[in-house]
């Protein structure tokens, strides 16, 4: 061994020299720039955003999605935000299907001492749905993770080596499908471990209702889906059950889960706050509002209580940070779109200055959520909202950022924002013939599986 060690060390040393020589050539030849643009188009957008922006808005598709036929304005949330913050340079970076796990990695491209040149803020959109198994075990996740390799300032060639050797979460669609199926089968949906009456193996068998039990909640998504396949699900409304089935299935898979501390996306939130604190960059979380209205129409309280639980889980976390970092230079804030919007509309309604438009629907007199007509994807479970709500999100985010910059505001004065007034309008009606245009890649295969095994 004594004669082997020096020889190995010498060769390793030569290997390292070759590596750095290759890295020099790789960067200086411009090949890295090309490859980075090819493998990670977002990385150069992030460079530009961090280089030129005071407020960087990291968003997913809800930032930019709009309905070309009915939206009055096609502005994204970040563009509206720029209108509300004329003193700040707002830069929006958005990508379909992105989530806080990737936003956390994106902050790796934040320049060191970025905050030295003035108060900076990062806005992170938080989509509750993206914390669930359907989003986490999505077939696109491997390519997202490959792209995320470049959200780092490590040696250029090392990034490329990671791509070549697939050094990232590269589970294929089969592995993802298995993880998702396992989640659906094993994760308990009972809030607090036992509230309500739950069942699994049968649904509504003879005698259950006569026994006086009021709630028959499902223990797991698997049993719920099976019952859905058996057409026993308590779907309300007049829609034809078979036509609504794909939509109902999508809602279950997207929203029927419970958040906990072990959830990797929850841990990503912690990482975001830690990184921003380290860099002394303010952070504002924008908690998007899921389509409670339609979830309620499909499954009633059984599903909305799970969604409420998850939203509250996130709210508590954000509120805790907001309070914890209230005093220092570093600030954390959050914009609870659902609550703020409901409060706002309810207030207007109570004062009689506005019609009850876009808040409650039949069976929802308590103004808990926005009306489903504000969602532009024809009632599919996305958070894509019309210009009215996008503007509202921007307004509330701007208020939060301005509150952080209060001292600056006194010094510089506030320019009146040039924001178009958008009146809410009913711009989307339910389309029961929808063919799941944005279904996640596993949905169809699950359907085959469910048809085979869950009937």
């Amino acid at each position, binding site marked *: 061994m004594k004669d082997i060690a020096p020889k190995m060390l010498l060769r390793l040393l030569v290997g390292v020299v070759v590596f750095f020589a290759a890295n020099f050539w*790789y960067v200086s030849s411009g090949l890295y720039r090309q490859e980075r643009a090819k493998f990670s188009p977002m990385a150069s957008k992030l460079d530009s955003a961090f280089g030129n922006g005071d407020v960087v808005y990291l968003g997913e598709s809800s930032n930019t999605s709009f309905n070309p036929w009915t939206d009055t304005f096609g502005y994204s949330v970040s563009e509206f935000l720029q209108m509300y913050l004329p003193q700040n340079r707002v830069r929006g970076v958005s990508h379909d299907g992105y989530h806080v796990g990737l936003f956390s990695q994106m902050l790796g491209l934040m320049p060191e001492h970025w905050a030295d040149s003035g108060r900076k803020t990062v806005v992170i959109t938080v989509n509750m749905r993206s914390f669930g198994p359907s989003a986490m075990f999505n077939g696109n996740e491997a390519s997202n993770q*490959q792209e995320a390799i470049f959200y780092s300032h490590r040696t250029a060639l090392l990034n490329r080596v990671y791509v*070549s050797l697939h050094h990232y979460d590269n589970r294929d669609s089969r592995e993802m499908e298995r993880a998702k199926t396992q989640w659906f089968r094993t994760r308990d949906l009972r809030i607090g471990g036992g509230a309500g009456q739950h069942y699994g193996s049968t649904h509504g068998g003879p005698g259950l209702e006569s026994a006086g039990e009021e709630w028959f909640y499902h223990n797991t998504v698997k049993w719920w889906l099976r019952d859905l396949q058996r057409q026993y699900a308590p779907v309300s409304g007049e829609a034809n059950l078979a036509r609504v089935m794909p939509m109902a299935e999508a809602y279950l898979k997207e929203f029927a889960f419970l958040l906990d501390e072990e959830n990797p996306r929850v841990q990503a939130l912690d990482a975001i706050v830690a990184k921003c604190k380290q860099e002394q960059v303010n952070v504002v979380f924008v908690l998007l509002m899921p389509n409670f209205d339609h979830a309620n129409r499909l499954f009633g309280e059984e599903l909305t209580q799970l969604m409420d639980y998850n939203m509250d889980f996130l709210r508590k976390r954000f509120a805790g940070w907001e309070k914890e970092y209230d005093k220092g230079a570093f600030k954390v804030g959050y914009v609870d779109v659902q609550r703020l919007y409901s409060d706002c509309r309810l207030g207007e309604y109570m004062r009689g200055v506005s019609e009850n438009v876009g808040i409650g629907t039949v069976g929802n007199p308590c103004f808990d959520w926005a009306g489903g007509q504000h969602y532009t994807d024809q009632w599919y479970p996305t958070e894509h909202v019309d210009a009215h709500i996008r503007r509202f999100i921007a307004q509330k985010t701007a208020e939060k950022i301005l509150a952080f910059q209060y001292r600056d505001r006194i010094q510089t004065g506030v320019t009146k924002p040039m924001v178009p007034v958008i009146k809410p309008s009913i711009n989307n009606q339910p389309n029961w013939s929808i063919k799941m245009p944005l279904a996640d890649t596993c949905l169809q295969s699950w359907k085959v599986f469910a048809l085979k095994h869950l009937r």
Partner: protein
Amino acid sequence: MLLTSVIDWWCGMRVEQDGAGGWRKFWLWFSIGSNLTMLFMFKYLDFALGDSAMVRWMSDHNATAWIVELGKYTIPAGISFYTFQSISYVVDVYRGQEKAEHNLPKFMLYVSFFPQLVAGPIERFGKLHSQLFSDYMPRWENVRNGARLLIYGLFLKVAVADNLATVVDVFYADHVAFTQAEAWLATFYFTFQVYTDFFGYSLLAQGSALMFGIHLMDNFNKPFIAKSIPEFWQRWHISLSTWFRDYIFIPVGGNKRGPWVLALAAMLVFFTSGLWHGANGTMIAFGVAQGFLYLFDRFVFKKLEFVGGHFHDHEGRLPLRRRLWDGFRTVKTGFFFMMTLVWFRSATMDQASEVFGMLWMPGYIGCRLDGLEGIAAPTLAHGLQIPLFLCIFLLLDLWVMKDRADVWLGKFATPLRWMIYAAMAVSVWVWGGAINHPFVYFQF
């Protein structure tokens, strides 16, 4: 693997201790049966049961639903390889060729030796066991040669196979969108993708083992210079071919009992080989097609040998006519193998039929109207490395490299050798295939 190891370890001892008589046979078949049952449970149960009432019943009950999921989504790493390795041990003990291992951990190390666990080579007990437990003395030659095999294996996998996979995957994801020329290109590329992928893995396994002083068998020996399918299978996946030869072909009758028994044994071997590769119709079709090609070469094409004329001229050299004939046979063998790989790569029999249609229907232009953009016309920056690396590999494999990679590299002067290392390393670092593509044989 734990269960398989314990059963085979126990059966091996019983076979040895029970002397002559029926019990030996019982323990032998008990071992084979348990191994095959395990293999069946994980690999073939889902295929065999399909959408039966039993599967639905099992899915509906939490106590059994996990079994359905297991069969559907899970295959223990390397099950096809270590099962065959373990069976060969018990059979060898039964035949008296090996002594039973009485130490369970030692036997388990033989079954689970990490470099070759996932995708072979399928090593025999006698060869591997004696190396694993001989006195270990680290030797610089082993470390050096192992590292050389690792570098070359990595080059084959990452730079050649993964780059070819980028084209092949795009084609098979939506084959009807491509033209006839692109179908030929994808078929040609897949032939060398699967070769370099598996050859690369075998070299990585050999290299890793060699660094610990363990010599694993060569799994490939220039298969594309073979002049017939029988010769091809002596050069391709050698550890599996010899396993089939020793444990199925010869016991069934081999070539000693006339042409009919030979044909039966060959077809049985290739059918089993197809089934071993995967539980679906395409793999079985691949195996059966190989069987027919084997018999065709063995019984029909052999009769055309006279076309090649003499083997030596009056000066002892190979005559031009013979060279041309041999060249034709080599191309023919590679071409037939390439054709059967359409089944190997296709997801379904329907897809395989459609790809064959694209390849052979005269004037097939496909659905695309935008010419040969896409896979057939790679851009300079991101695509030229694909044919370039393939050409380099073919040049090395068919012509330049006469020995195994470690020996061949050792013949160069140090500066030139290090330039070759650096070129291979940079190829892997800078131009490695970006598509996430696991080793083809990991799925088996």
